[in-house]
């Protein structure tokens, strides 16, 4: 069964360092998302991406965050200068038709620990 894969599964970084989280969405999907979840709490929307551009972003997704689809298969989330409060589980999701009409398929997450 096709699945969303994320790497790394766990990354530890120092405050102020740049981090790139990678995702390989399901191959025929067109809509891509990043969510984060802090310590088993609520799943918070960060950004959605369609047709090679951001379609929606939340108030969390400030200038420190960026997303990219560099090669037609990977979808990356970059955090430019990490803060302690960026420590969370980051989930990538993809959807064939968009969240309004179909299922979001989530990866297993990348745990980011900022020291």
């Amino acid at each position, binding site marked *: 069964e096709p699945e969303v894969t994320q790497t790394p599964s766990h990354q530890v970084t120092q405050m102020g360092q740049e981090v790139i989280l990678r995702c390989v969405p399901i191959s025929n999907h067109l809509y891509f998302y990043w969510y984060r979840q802090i310590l088993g709490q*609520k799943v918070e929307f960060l950004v959605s991406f369609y047709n090679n551009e951001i379609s929606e972003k939340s108030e969390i997704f400030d200038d420190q965050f960026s997303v990219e689809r560099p090669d037609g298969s990977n979808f990356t989330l970059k955090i430019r200068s990490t803060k302690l409060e960026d420590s969370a589980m980051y989930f990538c999701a993809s959807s064939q038709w968009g*969240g*309004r009409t179909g299922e979001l398929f989530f990866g297993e997450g990348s745990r980011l620990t900022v020291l």
Partner: protein
Amino acid sequence: QQQVKQSPQSLIVQKGGISIINCAYENTAFDYFPWYQQFPGKGPALLIAIRPDVSEKKEGRFTISFNKSAKQFSLHIMDSQPGDSATYFCAATGNNNDMRFGAGTRLTVKP
């Protein structure tokens, strides 16, 4: 971000009992309401979803009840089983591409 309010935060049910989780939304533009199930160490996975043109949807032991005028919807799990123990998230989305999740309910079904 709090556009979907979910309760209770945690729920303990005996095996065979009914689990009920409630959600309320604010944005009247929302028109798709899924429920996601998350097991520890895994990403959320779609369980069941409803659109506001129906008041109820049932899939096996899982039922969504939807009240458009009250802007509320709920998940009912009939004959709850220990394997249903997980965190459940309601969500909502509308004519844009940002699905918003509730705060989650940790369900424990005791044998």
